[in-house]
């Protein structure tokens, strides 16, 4: 019998992840660029209003929430419109990353079975596409803040930092869901129920101080909660994020990112055969 006990491939250029930095497809920039272009073109080629739909959706949700929570539930949070907007827009980005990442491998199974590709480039392109759409809708927050006289402070410079943490987490979730969906076909349902719950466990419609002490631990367990609460408070009240918020957001994001890196690195070889 052969003395080679396990299969190996030695190639000059590789499509697999070996080091952490490989997760960002540094050697496949043109590929990622083209995948993003494909995604954007697919989304906007046939629709009349095109890009505007990305704004109308969250804007209308924000209006509905504003009316219900401010006038019916009588929540008293200053500059509530800005507060909600800066919660809904990143939340929609998160949802798009999850659903895009979930489908990214299975939907492209034809491609993956016929052409040697870095598998992670597909969820990566989905996340970046979602981020581009999200970033293009952000000026609305500035406009709304300006119109409603919400404080526009230097703390706005913290926003990109927290968005970076959010991006890391969303990429991690996209990778995990992408692989998970290959093996578990009803992950989509679990995901949709899970995100509904998670929405209320995140300080998007409320401030953390409003949550009773004994339930607050649930909020802190949510790895995204500090990102959202920092973003909300910067935009509605001009508050500088606290060290705790910063460390919680950074720590949770990097931890989840590393976990997804390790899992994906291990699974990347057997995923294609199970598609």
């Amino acid at each position, binding site marked *: 019998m052969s003395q080679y006990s*396990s299969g190996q*491939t030695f190639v*000059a250029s590789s499509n697999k992840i070996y080091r952490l930095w490989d997760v960002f497809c540094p050697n496949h920039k043109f590929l990622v660029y083209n995948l993003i272009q494909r995604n954007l073109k697919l989304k906007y*080629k046939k629709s009349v209003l095109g890009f505007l739909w990305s704004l109308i959706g969250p804007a209308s949700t924000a209006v509905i929430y504003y009316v219900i929570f401010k006038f019916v539930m009588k929540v008293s949070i200053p500059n509530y419109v800005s507060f909600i907007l800066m919660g809904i827009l990143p939340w929609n980005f998160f949802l798009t990353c999850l659903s895009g990442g979930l489908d990214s491998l299975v939907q492209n199974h034809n491609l993956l079975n016929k052409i040697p590709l870095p598998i992670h480039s597909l969820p990566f392109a989905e996340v970046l596409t979602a981020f581009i759409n999200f970033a293009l809708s952000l000026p609305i927050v500035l406009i709304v803040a300006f119109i409603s006289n919400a404080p526009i402070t230097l703390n706005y410079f913290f926003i990109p930092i927290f968005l970076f943490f959010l991006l890391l987490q969303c990429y991690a979730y996209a990778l995990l869901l992408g692989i998970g969906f290959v093996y578990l076909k009803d992950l989509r349902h679990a995901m949709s129920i899970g995100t509904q719950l998670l929405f209320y466990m995140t300080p998007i419609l409320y401030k953390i101080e409003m949550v009773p002490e004994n339930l607050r631990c649930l909020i802190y367990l949510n790895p995204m909660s500090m990102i959202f609460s920092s973003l909300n408070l910067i935009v509605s009240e001009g508050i500088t994020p606290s060290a705790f918020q910063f460390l919680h957001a950074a720590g949770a994001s990097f931890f989840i990112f590393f976990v997804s890196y390790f899992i994906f690195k291990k699974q990347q070889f057997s995923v294609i055969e199970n598609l």
Partner: protein
Amino acid sequence: MKKIAIELKHVSKKFTYRSDKTNNIKKMMVNLSKFNFSLSSPRTIDVLDNISVQIHQGDFVGIMGRNGAGKSTLLKIISGIYMPTVGEVHIHGKIAPLLELGAGFADELSGFENIFLNAAILGFNREKVNTYLDDIVNFSELGEKIHMPVRNYSSGMLVRLGFSIAVHLDAPILLFDEILAVGDVGFQEKCLKKIDEIYKAGKTIILVTHSPEQVEKFCNRCIVFDDKKIAYDGPTANGIKAYNGLF
């Protein structure tokens, strides 16, 4: 001594075939409650058995064999789509695989846009594509139809475009898996002539085909596959006899 482009050492490939797959959460929960932590009851199926082959730079190898013998799996392992279960694969040089018509194409985009997408998927960068863009468009003979969405292409048009992209993008190793069968006779001849051209320019080519005429005319080496193993590996004349001997 010619350099080696592709080397396989004792490569075997098994697929794990899952019956009674635990592919949803409900089944997973049921299994867990019975303390059964496995994902399914696996059965393995052998697809390749102890393949060792050396392909040198500049070889033009014709691979023939019955359907299901393992030729496509071999090409996929060489391209890096699958990993071998056992054994080693050494590749020296970039590979442009053409294993299926329009595999990398996005239906909604035009042929022209798909040139960039497909080239990027195959691993080429922007400069390469821009250098050869005109050649690719002209060779495909699609004319104005290159700006039509790929969704509306016939399979002949798909193979023209796909082949044109793969063959112009200057990879040292090319793999073709039975894709020439679809084009019309004129285009087939044109493709084979082009393949012959790049072979003479020093590229390494592997062509999976069911046509002994093609192998006889163009290849310098022939591998015949029979039932997961290599039955014959050598000059084309005897290779064709070996292939015919399979039936």
